[in-house]
């Protein structure tokens, strides 16, 4: 019984899970808003990758830049049009974002139809520890790590990044030292949804036939599990939690199918939730702090 290949597979998909959750975590940490439309922006990113590849022959690593730009614009509009307008009415924001997610799914259905679609892009593979890993997936996972590191560096070493962390730790404190909190909110919403859409592009490398208007829901749920595990607002914590989730999913699937469970993937998901409960019980602030 060798779980190494399952572990590696889990790390690689986990890197993507970490990336796709950074935006959710950032938006919650800074704006204290649970973005329940999160999965819908992953879906938008996935369709951008699909359309760019199938209709225009643009590979996903190039179309991810386009998705990032579109996500930034969308994130700014979400802030200016929904979150800021509804202000302190937290429940209203939640309902509005839920509606926005449903609306985006329906718009996607009008444009791309209700069927599952996808594409396959191969540029070769490498062998690691006896496991054939597709290069596209490996590069995707490495880029996801690099984007995470870049975000962490921006938050840690630039004036504006430090201001973002200040708002996470104490918004009133940030206000009285001269931080334009409104601008930090707009920036975080734009960047957060930009990264989410970009992550949606990367995700398509792993789901060759899994793009669908309603694919967002499970990713929203998974995103919250990962973000809470990592510590809401913490970049490094979110990424590590993404890796853990990927490993649990992959290794859990293997072990549960060995043990003869009928629904091993459901059991692996169950295991991930058990882990979430344990982390919340033992370390309620999540793995890391911002």
């Amino acid at each position, binding site marked *: 019984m060798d779980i190494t290949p399952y572990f590696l597979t889990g790390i690689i998909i986990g890197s993507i899970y970490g990336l796709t959750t950074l935006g959710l975590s950032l938006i919650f940490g800074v704006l204290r808003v649970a973005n329940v439309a999160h999965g819908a922006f992953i879906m938008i990113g996935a369709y951008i990758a699909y359309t760019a590849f199938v209709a225009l022959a643009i590979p996903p690593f190039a179309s991810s830049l386009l998705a990032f730009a579109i996500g930034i614009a969308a994130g700014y509009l979400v802030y200016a049009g929904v979150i800021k307008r509804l202000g302190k009415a937290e429940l209203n924001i939640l309902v509005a974002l839920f509606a926005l997610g449903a609306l985006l799914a329906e718009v996607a259905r009008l444009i791309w139809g209700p069927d599952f679609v996808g594409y396959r892009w191969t540029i070769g593979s490498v062998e690691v520890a006896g496991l054939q890993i597709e290069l596209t997936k490996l590069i995707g996972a490495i880029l996801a790590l690099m984007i995470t590191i870049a975000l962490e560096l921006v938050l840690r070493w630039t*004036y504006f990044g*430090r*201001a973002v*962390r*200040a708002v996470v*730790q*104490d918004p*009133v*404190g*940030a*206000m*009285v*030292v*001269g*931080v*334009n*909190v*409104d601008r930090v909110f707009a920036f975080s919403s734009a960047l957060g949804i930009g990264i989410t859409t970009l992550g949606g592009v990367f995700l398509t490398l792993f789901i060759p036939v899994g793009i669908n208007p309603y694919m967002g829901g499970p990713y929203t749920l998974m995103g919250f599990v990962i973000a809470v595990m990592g510590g809401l607002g913490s970049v490094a914590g979110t990424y590590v939690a993404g890796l853990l989730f990927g490993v649990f999913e992959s290794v859990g699937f293997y072990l549960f199918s060995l043990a003869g469970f009928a629904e091993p993937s459901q059991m692996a998901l169950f295991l991930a939730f058990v882990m979430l409960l344990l982390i919340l019980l033992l370390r309620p602030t999540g793995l890391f*702090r*911002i």
Partner: protein
Amino acid sequence: MALRVSNLASGYGRLQVLFGVSFEAPSGSVVSILGPNGAGKTTTLLTVMGVVKPWDGVVELEGVDVTWLPPHRKVELGISLVPEGRRLFPEMTVEENLLMGAYTKRARDKIHDSLELVYTLFPRLKERRKQKAGTMSGGEQQMLAVARALMARPKVLLIDEPSAGLAPKVVADLFQTISQLKKEMSVLLVEQNVAAALEISDYSYVLENGRIILKGPASELVENEHVKKAYLGV
């Protein structure tokens, strides 16, 4: 006049807290606003700062009307607040907190001078510069809160209840330092610890139920019958 506030009214939602509060804080002096819990002292500072939106009245900084500016613009122009409860960034180090204090453009240019200045004023902070702010004692946190506000190079420094939760000896040291600050700026102090505040104030106002009911040089207010009975317990 460094800070002049006229007929300031404000509150939260439909609840009015301030009913036309007026006071002045000239540079080179410590002015205090004293009063019981719930009188509107904190609200006064938050409204001057713009964290709470004014309903009416005028706030002037060196003769310029700044009533409606948002907090970050006021910091840029020279008003700094040491807020109630300190509002530090608990997961940042002492030094990171101080650097955040110099966030505005005007302050950023003088950041090295400012750091040296606050470390001279509070040598303890220099010893602790790599420590996370959230792990320090209450007195050290209050020092850091004052130091962080100084990093913005204010012309008017608003300090909200610095003595809260601190031991008498620590309060005495802190007030000693605060009284030195007036050489460089105007200090507006809000306090429930009336005896300690009157000792370092040049001029004081007594705020009750959202209105100024008494004002005068601190040396005179110490002798006032109402102040003696209600606040000094003599």
